[in-house]
């Protein structure tokens, strides 16, 4: 099989170097090699699609980039310099935000509380770090408006909302702190076709504003080929192939996913 791994550090669509880069990342769980020597680069302004069969290691890879999992080997580089992330807050401080497969929302809290979860705007410590509710609410409103999500209630518990609304809240949370990289783990899995298209537009909007975006999806034909610039295929914990989205058909991507050699080609 052919891959384009040697080209990873080369220029992205904006001509800049990669904003986030993985080199030789590996991770094992007990005896399972979830990730083996994975190289991957995300450039500012591009949408990278990450695809692969169930258990291929996509979510695990995202978790290493968001500071949840520590890789066993390899290095993570952010804007050209090596970083060690000792937890999810470390990644967030760098400007790497993640929208998880399970959304990671607290159903009993409202949209504002979920948006600011773990990074609440608070007053002085001697008053017990009192939460600045009004300020949080107006900033939440601002972000939702920019995402054209005005109709989402800020005060109802998110557990009482629809799947699409919850997905949108999770996305809004990821961009609340002006990130430079956003990682999406299956953002369209539970959505109708129209809602998925909406998410696709939103993702494109982020990239157009100069962010680096990575999207995991199983929806190869409708979503990945349409909404991304580059597609990275994972199989059994390794990068199996890489394509430019414009040059490839859904069939070819699926073939690379399941291990057929037909149509596997190089991105650059």
């Amino acid at each position, binding site marked *: 099989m052919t891959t384009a791994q040697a080209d990873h550090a080369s220029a992205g669509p904006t001509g800049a170097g990669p904003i986030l880069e993985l080199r030789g990342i590996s991770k094992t769980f007990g005896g399972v090699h979830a990730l083996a020597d994975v190289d991957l680069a995300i450039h500012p302004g591009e949408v990278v699609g990450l695809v692969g069969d169930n258990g291929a290691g996509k979510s695990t890879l995202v978790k290493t980039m968001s500071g949840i999992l520590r890789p066993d080997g390899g290095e993570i580089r952010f804007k050209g310099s090596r*970083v060690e992330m000792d937890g999810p807050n470390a990644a967030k401080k760098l400007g790497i935000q993640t929208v998880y497969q399970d959304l990671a929302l*607290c*159903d009993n809290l409202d949209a504002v509380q979920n948006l600011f979860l*773990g990074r609440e705007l608070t007053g002085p410590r001697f008053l017990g770090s009192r939460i600045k509710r*009004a300020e949080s*609410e107006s*900033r939440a409103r601002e972000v939702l408006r920019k995402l054209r999500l005005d*109709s989402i209630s800020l005060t109802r518990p998110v*557990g009482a909302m629809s799947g699409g609304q919850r997905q949108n809240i999770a996305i809004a949370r990821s961009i609340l702190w002006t990130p430079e990289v956003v990682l999406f783990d299956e953002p369209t899995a539970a959505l109708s076709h129209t809602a998925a298209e909406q998410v696709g537009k939103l993702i494109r909007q982020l990239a157009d504003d100069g962010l680096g975006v990575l999207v995991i999806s199983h929806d190869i034909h409708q979503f990945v080929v349409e909404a991304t610039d580059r597609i990275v295929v994972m199989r059994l914990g390794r990068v199996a192939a890489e394509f430019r989205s414009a040059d490839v058909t859904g069939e070819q991507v699926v073939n690379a996913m399941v291990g057929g050699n037909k149509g596997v080609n190089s991105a650059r």
Partner: protein
Amino acid sequence: MSTHHSTQSPTATAVATTPDPPADPAATPSPRLTPRRRLAELLAGDLRALPVVAGLTVLVLIFSLQSPFFLSSRNLSNLLVQAVVTGIIALGLVFVLLLGEIDLSVAAISGVCSVLMAKLMAEAGMSSVLAVVVAVVLGAVIGAFTGSWATRFLVPTFVVTLGLGLILNGVQLQLLPRTGRYNLLGTGIEDIAGSYVTGAASWLLVVLAVVVVAGLKLTHHQRKASHGIDSSVVKNVVLPVAVTAVAGVLVVSVLDANAGIPTPVVIFGVLLAITSYILTETRFGLSLYAVGGNAEAALRSGIKVNRVKIAAFALAGGLAALAGIIAASRLLGVSVSSGGGIGGGALLLNAIAAAVIGGVSLFGGRGRASSALLGALIIATVGNGLNLLGVSTDVQLLVTGALLVLAVTVDRSVERLSGSVGR
């Protein structure tokens, strides 16, 4: 962590360059709520306490019709004091239950800490103030130990606290002298339950409560207004202040007609206010709800889940110890039966029942400080009222148990209708 820190502010400048097109209704359809569901959502939210308050009112009505003595200021004063010990333990349990955890050792903590306090005074000649402080701190340390053990070894707190409760019962027996009892008469401890705040001082407390509530509500309202968020003065400021004032005046006039506000009631009131502030206003309070709602999400958002757990158990332990001291003060001594006796007995069950009847979910993530008050009041009212009617303990147990099941059933139904469970 190294090298790079991007400057970040919590605004969406990332997408600020795109103009704002009109909202796309297809993407996020605004929900059409049926009246039934709207009511359910109200009951699940702002009006959460309504069924419990209604239940309490019915109980009070029944008992006042059956016994002329029930509504006398002397009896109501008694009833409040009876509610305090259960109420303070329940208040501590709220912290733990919000996390979706449980502490079955709280009654034992209250027992062992009160016995230790008595022993320190009787045998080590320690001053009463210092002994009280030591006992409360010990309660908090025991709680923190529970939290650490459970998080360190990933053992369910149900099991840890069950075992710990028995251990503490054993320690309590070892601490007691041969006679099985320490007398607290003349130590100063008896003054806690035996003293009252009366006259001008009691009214000052009402004023203080009103000022605090008004201050909190006003700052909220002003901040909302300054951020352009709709906020009704009547609903968000005038109403809560009026409710506080009316309730305060009512309670104090009734109690002053007897001997004044019993000190334990003042203590409970202050603890309620502080707990309420912690739960509704602070970052720690929100963390409790977040962990109880979705611990994994809380963890990924950077909340130090283990620390939050340890703190919650420490608070529960400290409050349980304080409750034990107040109980000892009422009974003028400590004995084998302090802390509800072996296994926690009715004290433990009543404290858990109080929190749950008051609206705290055993599954975590839902409940308020006022839940402990309402639940303890219901349990004390049932006990006190049935006592006045000369009804024996067996029937009291039947009624309390039935109320518990009823309360949880109503609660779950509301939650199901409002759509916040069963997802």
